[in-house]
């Protein structure tokens, strides 16, 4: 029995819809599951069989998160590093980019060579560690924000952007006697908001999610980031003997597992909040990934 083209098309359409629906579930459900579990009583969650909504609804996990200094301190460190790291990084990168965006800048070629070379080659972790150590950044808050102040990728993006700003804008400010810093601050930045927004969003997400620097370069318990704290719990609970012990180290219905679920929701929440804004700049962001390779 031969199928007509029409019927074939219809079968294919349903097939595609079914596959996409399965993909949707696989992508979405893990987030949903973590969310409902974080609102469920920790000791109750251990018995399993929670799939669609909390069985023993509670806010305990979040209350505990906010009252446990171990967690809320890490949360504050993450917030502060994200805000300061983003502002500092975006300002510094765009300031350097502004200088380089002048076509008639002397030594321009040399500067560019230096930047491109630094983009493709690196000394690796160990010498980098030695450098951070000898300039006193190790085990300090500065290690989160200073070494990431200049992003070579965003530098190139910003140079292209500033170069396309009409020269008359700068010239008229020059005639008014403004110096370069004032021009940058008062004339260039206000017309570069799309660029600043893109850089801020991607830098901010990176700062917020970052835990490797906390693992590599910091020993002080007061400087741990939220992502690092979650990593600690996960590393401990991956060892099979430990996971039951961790689950049982409960008090008043909260287990360290349920506490971690709350931490996960709290760490994903800001990203979901900026998600609509991030989406606007996605394609540019993919290019970011590909250049960084």
């Amino acid at each position, binding site marked *: 029995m031969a199928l007509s083209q029409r019927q074939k*098309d219809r079968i294919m359409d349903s097939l595609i819809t079914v596959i996409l629906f399965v993909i949707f579930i696989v992508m979405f459900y893990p987030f949903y599951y973590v969310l409902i579990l974080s609102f469920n009583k920790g000791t109750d969650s251990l018995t399993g069989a929670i799939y669609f909504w909390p069985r023993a609804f509670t806010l305990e996990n979040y209350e505990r998160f906010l009252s446990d200094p171990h967690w809320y301190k890490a949360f504050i460190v993450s917030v502060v590093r994200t805000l300061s790291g983003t502002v500092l990084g975006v300002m510094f990168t765009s300031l350097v980019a502004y200088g380089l965006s002048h076509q008639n*800048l002397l*030594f321009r070629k040399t500067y560019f060579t230096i930047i491109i070379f630094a983009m493709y080659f690196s000394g690796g972790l160990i*010498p980098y560690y030695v450098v951070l150590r000898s300039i006193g950044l190790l085990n300090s808050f500065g290690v989160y924000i200073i070494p990431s102040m200049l992003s070579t990728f965003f530098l190139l993006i910003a140079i292209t952007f500033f170069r396309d700003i009409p020269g008359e804008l700068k010239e008229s400010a020059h005639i008014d006697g403004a110096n370069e810093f004032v021009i940058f601050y008062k004339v260039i930045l206000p017309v570069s908001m799309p660029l600043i927004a893109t850089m801020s969003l991607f830098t901010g997400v990176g700062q917020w999610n970052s835990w490797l620097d906390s693992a*590599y370069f910091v020993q002080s318990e007061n400087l741990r980031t939220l992502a690092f704290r979650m990593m600690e719990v996960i590393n401990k609970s991956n060892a099979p003997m430990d996971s039951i012990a961790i689950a049982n180290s409960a008090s008043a219905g909260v287990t360290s597992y349920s506490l971690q679920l709350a931490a996960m929701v709290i760490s994903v929440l800001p990203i979901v909040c900026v*998600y609509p804004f991030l989406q606007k700049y996605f394609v540019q962001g993919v290019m970011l990934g*590909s250049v960084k390779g």
Partner: protein
Amino acid sequence: MALDSSVDRNIRFSKRRTQFFKQLKRQKVLHLFVGLGMIFLLIFAYTPMFGIIMAFKDYSISTGIKGIFTSEWVGFKHFNEFINDYRFGEIVRNTLALSFLKVLFTFPAPIILAILLSEAKNLRFKKVVQTVSYLPHFISWVVVAGIAFSFLSADIGMINKALMSLGIIDKPLDILTNADHFWGLAVGSAVWKEVGWWTIIFLAAIAGINPTLYEAAQIDGAGRLARIRHITFQGMKGTIVVVLILTIGSILGGGLVGSNFEQAFLFGNSINNSTSEIVQTYAFKVGLRDGRFSYAAAIDLIQSIISVILIFSSNYIAKRASGSSLF
């Protein structure tokens, strides 16, 4: 005559020189801005690059930066030591296996998803699926590991509990703590996290295809699959090549999804160590944890050299094969 022209040249030269200094003076603030950036790169990018010579020395951390230059040369001692390390074979195997498996699966996955999405008739549905699919890209690997734990853990993982209560299995699956499952776990979670993100770039390529091509093909009697094969796929080809070059160049870090280190670090544990230890985690452990800096730098350097060779050779091959290349 000759004297004249040399005087002339001198005048012209000094004129040019004064002009040069005038320009420099006028640009002094700009040079200050750029100079700050250069100082930054000197400290955080170039000093570590020079520091790599410690791989050929017996460096001790207590001597600081200066020690990198003053410590004693030992040639290839640390490289030989790594090659003779009893774990060398295992670590290299894990690094290569993980890298190639990840590329094998994470490279085609977004191409397939992009084609599926472009074929979807309901635009609202397409948009929803796409929006959800790239959310995982923006969350930390730590959270992904946490999610994996809550689903797959042998004790409290949802999947194990559900399968056990349904009577499908009578012993929990030890996906997180079995050396045989680590590679699958790493590849699976990498696909989950990054497939949606890379789909964007392929969807952009599909969006650039002239729609009249599809109409013409339909009139010519081409079926759905034929159209996908001959139009959609052909239209994506250039993008596929560029992404493939980038992937192969960064293969040792995990291809375009990166993250080999983070996965090995987060999903690795004492039980699956025989398959989860890779060059990067090993360098991290012997270097920062055990304080064997020169040895770790040598291990790092081997990986970097292989990566650079891969970047240039994949670029060269792509240039030869298809005419498109990165540089």
